């Protein structure tokens, strides 16, 4: 079977530019030639795969001064950069708050003469031999303060402070 004329028609067939008469000749050849039919079908499959990718949204891009203004994007579409860092910032903020609260719950709280419980947060360190003492206290109003008193712990800060801080935060919120 002579496939040479079909080779010259292949690009037009795939590009949808064959005339009706040539299309008839082309398809008649494919019906009887496995090799040409395979070439045509696999290339067509490739074109379908390329066209199957989602295209861009319809946008208009305008220049205003030295800025580009893009119109047509949905407001809720998250940017890659914002999504990447939003989670990290929240996590970091949560850790900081939890550690701070953890330290606060391990501090001595003093009951004032008028029944108010007050303390103030300050950090300091004083070495006594091999131990490190950490002094701190928290300034809080009675109605927001936890009712239990805790002892001052002489120890290094650790993960348990984070856990206790998280629990304390939940207790205060209630």
């Amino acid at each position: 079977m002579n496939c040479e004329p079909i080779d010259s028609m292949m690009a037009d067939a795939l590009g949808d530019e064959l005339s009706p008469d040539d299309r008839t000749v082309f398809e008649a050849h494919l019906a009887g030639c496995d090799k040409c039919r395979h070439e045509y079908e696999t290339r067509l499959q490739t074109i379908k795969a390329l066209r199957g990718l989602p295209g861009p949204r319809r946008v208009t891009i305008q220049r205003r001064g030295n800025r580009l203004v893009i119109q047509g994007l949905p407001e809720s579409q998250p940017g890659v950069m914002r999504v990447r860092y939003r989670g990290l910032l929240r996590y970091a903020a949560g850790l900081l708050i939890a550690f701070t609260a953890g330290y606060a719950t391990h501090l001595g709280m003093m009951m004032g003469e008028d029944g108010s419980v007050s303390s103030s947060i300050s950090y300091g360190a004083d070495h006594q031999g091999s131990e490190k003492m950490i002094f701190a206290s928290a300034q809080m109003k009675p109605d927001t303060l936890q009712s239990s008193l805790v002892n001052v712990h002489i120890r290094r800060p650790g993960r348990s402070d984070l856990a206790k801080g998280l629990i304390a935060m939940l207790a205060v919120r209630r």
Partner: protein
Amino acid sequence: MLARIASDPPESGFELYAADVYGWAYRLLGRHHDALDVVQDVFVKWAQQCARQEPQHPRGWLRRVTLNHAIDKVRVRRHGSIESDEAIVRHTHPAEAPGQSMDQAVLRADIAKALDRLSDSQRSVLVAKIYDDLTFARIAEELDLTVSTVKTHYLRALDVLRAQLRPRWDDQEKL
């Protein structure tokens, strides 16, 4: 959404072609912000080119430069981990099933790898035919080539893409 551009491109080129440039870049990259980066870079190049001599066929020139920049961006991205690509795809396509988004991302990566192996002309012909739906005659005029050369480039480009995508189809058939 606003982005800053380094210089003022000629009004006519930018206003006419910015959306097309964005579309070509998005096809290859699949990410809005990456496509905008390419738009920015391409029109800086456009301004520099127009300062020397405006291209005879602006659209053809812009398509070629856009594809080159998009391919470069894919090369840079390829050095990152697959896990980070998965996470990014999941975040930028929240409405789609994660599996489907990942499949599209992998398909885009395969397509970009194959396009990277093509010459500038072959790449431009393929994109112009598949996505812009231009006739071979029109493509030949834009790229200053003969029609038979354009057709040869088209078939060659399809063959390279086919070779890259064939393993995916074979795997799908096995399933």
